[in-house]
C-alpha cells in the first residue's frame, strides 16, 4: 500500500516536472536509456550536468561583469550551456538560453543580464526538484513511468 502510494507520488512528481515545462522529451530519452546495467543513469547524467555547467555559469557571470560586454564570447558560452542543458531535457532553462542568445545577437546587454538572472534561478530550482525526485525514486525502487508523456 504504502509502496504503491509512494510509487504514485513519484510518478506524480515526475509528471509535474513535465507539466510545469521544466523538462521535455529529452529527459524521457534519458530515462529510456536507464537499465539494469545503469540503474541510476539519469541521476548520474543530471549530476554531471550540474557539476560541469557550474563552470560555465561562472564564466558567464564573470563575462557579464566586464565592460564592455563581449557578446560573441557570451554567445559562445551560452551556446555550450544550451547544448548541455538541452541534452538533459531542461526545457525551461534551454528556453532561457535561447532568449539570452537572442539578446547577445542584438547586442542588448541589459536583456542578457536580466535573462541570465532568471536562468540561474530556474537552473537552481530544477536542480532542487530533480534531487528530490531522484531521492524519492530511489527509495521507491524502479518505478514504471507509466505516465510518460507522448
Amino acid at each position, binding site marked *: 500500500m504504502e509502496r504503491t502510494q509512494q510509487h504514485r507520488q513519484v510518478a506524480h512528481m515526475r509528471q509535474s516536472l513535465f507539466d510545469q515545462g521544466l523538462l521535455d522529451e529529452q529527459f524521457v530519452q534519458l530515462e529510456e536509456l536507464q537499465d539494469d546495467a545503469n540503474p541510476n543513469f539519469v541521476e548520474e*547524467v543530471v549530476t554531471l550536468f550540474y557539476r560541469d555547467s557550474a563552470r560555465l555559469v561562472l564564466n558567464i557571470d564573470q563575462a557579464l561583469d566586464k565592460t564592455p560586454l563581449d557578446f560573441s564570447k557570451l554567445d559562445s558560452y551560452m551556446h555550450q550551456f544550451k547544448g548541455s542543458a538541452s541534452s538533459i531535457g531542461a526545457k525551461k532553462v534551454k528556453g532561457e538560453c535561447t532568449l539570452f542568445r537572442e539578446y547577445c545577437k542584438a547586442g542588448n546587454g541589459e536583456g542578457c543580464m536580466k535573462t541570465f538572472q532568471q536562468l540561474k534561478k530556474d537552473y537552481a530550482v530544477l536542480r532542487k526538484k530533480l534531487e528530490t525526485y531522484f531521492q524519492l525514486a530511489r527509495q521507491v525502487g524502479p518505478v514504471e513511468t507509466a505516465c510518460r508523456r507522448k
Partner: protein
Amino acid sequence: MNLGSGQGSMSTASSSGAWKAGDVVPDQFPAGLRVLVVDDDPTCLMILEKMLRTCLYEVTKCNRAETALSLLRGNKSGFDIVISDVHMPDMDGFKLLEHIGLEMDLPVIMMSADDGKHVVMKGVTHGACDYLIKPVRIEALKNIWQHVVRKRKNEWKDLEQSGSVEDGDRQQKPSEDVDYSSSANEGNWKNSKRRKDEEDDAEERDDTSTLKKPRVVWSVELHQQFVAAVNQLGIDKAVPKKILELMNVPGLTRENVASHLQKYRLYLRRLSGVSQHQNGLNNSFMGPQEATFGSISSLNGLDLQTLAVAGQLPAQSLATLQAAGLGRSTGKSGLPMPLVDQRNLFSFEAPKFRYGEGQQQQQQLSNSSKQMNLLHGIPTTMEPKQLATLRHSAQSFGSINMQVNAHGNDSSSLLMQMAQPHSRAQILNETTGNHVSRIASSMGQPVLSNGIAGGLLTRNVIVENGRGAGFNPVSQGPSVVEFPMNHTAELPGNSFPLGTNPGISSIQSKGLLEEVSSEIKGSRGFVPSYDIFNELHQPKSQDWELQNVGLTFNASQHANSIPGNLGSEHGNTHNISQHLNTLVDSSSRVKTEKILDPCCEITPFPEHYVQEDLMSALLKQQEGIGPVEGEFDFDGYSMDNIPV
C-alpha cells in the same frame, strides 16, 4: 537496407552473418560498429556513449579533438565512423572533419545545438556525411551505420568506373541513398545533395546519368607515361594539355588527364604530408609501385574521395607498413598495410606505397596472415585490365567483403563486408560485367575482387586490424577500395590474386582473420569470398591474378574464379585464372574454393549470408552462374533481390 527482396535478408542477416562467420544471429548488424565520439561537453558525451552502447555499437569517447585525431591516426582502421561536435575549444569541429576526411576518410557526423542553416551548410561543404542537432535522440543514432555502408558503396562505385556499373543501377543508388539519408534533422535533401555532390565529384562518374562514358583505365604503363610527362614538365608546370601532348596516347582526353592529375597531386600532397615517416618507405615503395600503380590507376575510376581515402591510407598504411615491415614483421601490420597498399593502388596516389608495401605485405600476409596479407596479396598482381575488372569486383566488393568475411573466419570481417555487400550488391547488379565482383560477393568473401576489393579491403582491413569483429569493413570502406588492385605485388606467392581479399577479410574482423588466418593469409587471397575476384586474379605465382580477374570478370561468367581463390590462397593459382573465366560457374567454384583451400580453414564461403545476396546478384547477372550457394545458400541468384 534491403538489398533485394530475395536477398533481403542480406541486409540484415547477411550483415550479421558477415560479422560473425555466419553463426551470428542475423539481426546483429550493425552491431559492433565502431564509433568514435568527440565532444567537449561531458554531459553530452556521457549520454551519447550510453545511447550508442544501447544501439550495440562499440563506443570510444574523447573530449578533445586532438585526442580524437591521435586515436584515429594511431589506429587507422580502428573505427568505422566518427561523431563530432562542431564547437570545441581546442579545434573547430569542421577542421577535425577535414582532417579525418583527408587522412582517414571515415564518415563523419557533425552535431551541434546550433541548427542554423549556415552551420549545417558548412557541414555539408566540409564533407560531413550527416548533421545532428542536439539534443541527439537515440533514433538518430540508430541509423548512422548507413553512412558507413554508403561510403563504402560509393567507393566501390568509384572503383568501378569502367562503366561496369549500369546507369540504371547508378541511378538507383542515388535514390536509395536519399532514402537512407537522414539521420535526422536535416532532411534528406541535404544528404542526398551531399551525396550527389560526392558522386559528382567522382571523376567521370556516370552517376545517374544514362549515358555511359567510357572510362579510361589508367594502366601501369599509362600511368608511367603520365608520371614521366609530369616529371618532364615539372610538377608545377604540369598542365593537363601539355601532359596530354607529351603522353601522346590516342583516345586520351584532356579531361582524363586532368582528373588523373588531380588525384596525383593529392597523392603527392599526401605523400609529402606523411613523408616524415614514410620517407624511406615511400621511396622503396615508389619503385615497385609503378607496376602496381598501373593497376591502381585502372581502378581509378575512383573519385577524389576515393583517392583521398587512398591517399589517406597510403600515408597511414605506409607508416604502418614501414613499421610493419618492410621488414615484415608481422601480421599486425598486415592489416594496415594492406590497406595502405590497397588504397594506393586505387588511388594511384598511393600506388607507390602500395607497391612497396605490397611486397612487404605479401610477406606479411604470409606472416601475419590475417590482416594485411589479404589485401596486399590481391592487388599487387593486378594488371590494369584486371584492375578494371576489379573495379567491377570492387563493386562486388561489398559482397566480397562479405565474402571474405564470410569466410567464416570472423564474423566481424564479414559483417563489415556484409554491410558493404549490400551496397555492393546493388552495385553488383549494376555491373553485369562485373560478374567477377558478383561472384566475389557471392563468394562471400569480401575479398573484393582484388583490385577493387583491395581498395575496399584496405578499408576494411584497416578497420579490421584490431577488430575482427565488427564493423571493420564498413569503415574501411573507402580506403579499402584500393586494396586489391594495388597489391599485385603483394601476393606473396600465392596466387593471392585477390590478394586484397585477404585483406578484406582481414579487415573485417581481425577476429576472422585470426581464425581465418589461413584465409587471411592474405596472400592467400583470402578472398575466398572474393573468389570471384580471386580466381580471376589468381596469380599463379603472384601475378596477381587480378589480371585474370579483371579480364575474367567480364568473361567471368564462366570463370569460376571463385574456387580459384581458395586455390590461390594456397597458392593454387591454377584455379584462379581459370576460375576467373568461369566466374559464372562460380557456384561450382565457390564450392571448390572451399575445397581448394585446405589450408584455409575457412570455408570460403561459409556463412556468408551476405554474400548470398551479392552472390546471387552476381550470379544472376552472370546468368545464373552456378550458385555458389553451396555454401551460401544462395539459391539462385536473385540479383534482383538485392535491395538497392
